[in-house]
């Protein structure tokens, strides 16, 4: 039996799905371009039921992708039952969708969810009357409190019933929905909960809104990088140990397994604690209802660069690591804004680039080191914003129109928080992991063969071969090789300079060093980032990102070298 779950966003569909299946379902992701529908298999009284969680939508009238996914599914796959999840707090607007669903002629059951919240606000709904008007069973539920779940299961197994058809254009539907809502709903006292008003007043305060938002962002950083760090260190210690143990055996196979696969995949997997903590914090911000408020606060600034309020969180996260930051662009519903936000993200200087700046700034700018390092971050942000503006004016033109509901604040329950965090973390491990596995083998091969050491490897030949490209900047082939190796992960640049024993001050001047730092800030993203871009917005854009960032980096480094020569 196939049950399609349809409802507005913010009605608690996913928690209802968890309550119905005991949270014990396998969630399969079917990534579309921006949206995905989730499928969960569950057992209800020994009967196998497949639930399809369609994206949250408001109607079937617009051309948005979410609605297309939902409509196509209902028309083409013909599920056995529609489980329409309705938010009891906002009955009339939810009914717009319910009435439009009646056109599909598919049996239906309505779950009047969040009934506990509605009763707290003194909203009474006559389910019997509603059920008579629409012609389908209506069950009061609260997924969070576990109310009405058994009854809902029984109705699902009974198969629901085919609703009366309500037709007409959107305006007629709205009129009918409002009439029905008036008939079945009694509100004894309409008053917004005190706590919501208090939180909104301060979080969106004219002066304090932005500082509070930045405070939360800083707390997210602390949580992601400082609190998760011991776990990170432990994992990378384990992987390092394992890699050198495996590589200590004789033979190319063990060398590949140890220095290639374990070292490469391990270096990425040891970021998992950071990523899981980051997703935990983000899920908390999302589930609590704070996120849409933040979007409102920063929209004015971001829209000057062709982005919108939703881009700010991925960009800030990019200072930590671009990989989870790019995954976080998923919450931006406008496709073009989303692509731009992912493409400019690598310009936000991630923490892996810091060791490079520290090394060069320490050697060449001993007095003004921290200013030079800071300037890298600032230049990165400026170039990201300018690129966004250019991309939005050329390749990704179009007005970004958005409307977003501010949901009531909610204290998220732990299970939901865990499920959300885990499904995102798993996505990272799978998507990034597979690509990195293949790439680590390739990188291991070109840095080991044919000579056996990095100086006599294909990578060294590559460094020498492409060195002429960088002759305008006057970088030696060793420095170029370090850049090539930084493709794996930016911190490897420093490691390679160490391995090759380059005496940095003798091969470059201070302005060349500055240009080199700029180049490492901007040039192509590391493999993991490219894998994330590919997973999120497709192979073509990932290739574009590589070319685009390389050209920007080249141009900026050339300009810096040119300007430096004048002094």
């Amino acid at each position: 039996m196939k049950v399609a779950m349809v409802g507005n966003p913010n009605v608690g569909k996913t928690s209802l799905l968890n309550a119905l299946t005991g949270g014990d379902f396998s969630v399969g992701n079917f990534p579309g371009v921006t949206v995905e529908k989730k499928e969960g298999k569950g057992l209800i009284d020994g009967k196998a039921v497949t639930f399809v969680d369609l994206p949250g939508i408001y109607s079937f009238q617009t051309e948005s992708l979410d609605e297309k996914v939902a409509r196509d599914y209902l028309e083409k796959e013909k599920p056995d039952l529609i489980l329409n999840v309705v938010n009891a707090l906002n009955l009339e607007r939810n009914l717009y969708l319910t009435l439009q669903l009646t056109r599909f002629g598919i049996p239906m059951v309505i779950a009047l969810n969040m009934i506990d919240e509605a009763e707290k606000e003194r909203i009474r709904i006559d389910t019997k009357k509603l059920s008579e008007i629409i012609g389908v069973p209506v069950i009061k539920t609260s997924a969070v409190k576990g109310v009405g779940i058994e009854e809902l299961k029984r109705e699902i197994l009974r198969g629901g019933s085919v609703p009366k058809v309500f037709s007409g254009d959107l305006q007629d539907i709205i009129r009918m929905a409002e009439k029905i809502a008036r008939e079945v709903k009694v509100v004894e006292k309409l008053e917004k909960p005190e706590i919501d008003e208090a939180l909104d007043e301060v979080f969106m305060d004219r002066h304090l809104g932005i500082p509070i938002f930045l405070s939360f962002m800083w707390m997210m950083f602390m949580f992601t990088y400082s609190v998760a760090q011991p776990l990170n260190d432990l994992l990378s210690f384990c992987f390092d140990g394992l890699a050198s143990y495996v590589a200590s055996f004789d033979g190319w196979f063990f060398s590949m397994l140890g220095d290639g696969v374990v070292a490469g995949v391990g270096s990425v997997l040891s970021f998992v604690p950071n990523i899981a903590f980051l997703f935990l914090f983000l899920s908390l911000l999302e589930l609590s209802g704070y996120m849409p408020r933040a979007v409102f606060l920063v929209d004015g600034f971001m829209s000057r660069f062709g982005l919108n309020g939703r881009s700010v969180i991925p960009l800030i996260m990019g200072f930590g690591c671009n990989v989870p930051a790019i995954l976080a662009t998923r919450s931006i519903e406008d496709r073009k804004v989303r692509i731009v936000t992912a493409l400019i993200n690598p310009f936000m200087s991630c923490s892996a680039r810091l060791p490079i700046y520290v090394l060069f700034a320490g050697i060449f700018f001993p007095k003004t080191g921290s200013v030079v390092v800071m300037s890298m971050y600032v230049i990165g942000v400026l170039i990201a914003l300018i690129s966004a503006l250019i991309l939005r004016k050329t390749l990704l033109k179009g007005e970004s129109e958005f409307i977003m509901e501010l949901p009531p604040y909610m204290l998220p329950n732990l299970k939901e928080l865990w499920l959300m965090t885990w499904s995102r973390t798993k996505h990272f491990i799978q998507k990034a992991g597979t690509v990195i596995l293949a790439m680590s083998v390739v990188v291991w091969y070109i840095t080991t063969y044919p000579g056996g050491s990095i100086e006599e490897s294909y990578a060294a030949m590559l460094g020498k071969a492409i060195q002429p490209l960088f002759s305008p900047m006057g970088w030696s082939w060793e420095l170029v090789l370090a850049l090539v190796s930084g493709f794996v992960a930016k911190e490897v640049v420093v490691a390679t300079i160490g391995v090759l024993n380059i005496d940095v001050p003798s091969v470059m001047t201070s302005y060349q060093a500055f240009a080199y730092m700029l180049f490492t800030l901007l040039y192509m993203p590391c493999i993991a980032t490219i894998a994330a871009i590919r997973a999120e917005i497709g192979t073509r854009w990932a290739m574009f990102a590589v070319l685009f960032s390389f050209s920007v980096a080249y141009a900026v480094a050339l300009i810096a070298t040119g300007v430096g020569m004048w002094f």
Partner: protein
Amino acid sequence: MSVVPLSALREGQEGTVVAINGGRGCTARLMSMGIVPGKKIKIAGRRGGAVLVSVNGTKFVIGRGLAMKVAVDVGGQG
């Protein structure tokens, strides 16, 4: 009676939605969220870009582009 775009309203100002002057898609999007001609709409806040409105007791953030397409009657005070 004076009709102005939603984006021109001041913070705290109230009005009645008269029409949505946009393509079919954006009209439907606004309407299906309850922003329909005849509804009272109040600007709860604005920060340069987006506006924060409250309709039917629900708050929405509406981007500037979209807010320009909603025509609102602010009565004599516009």
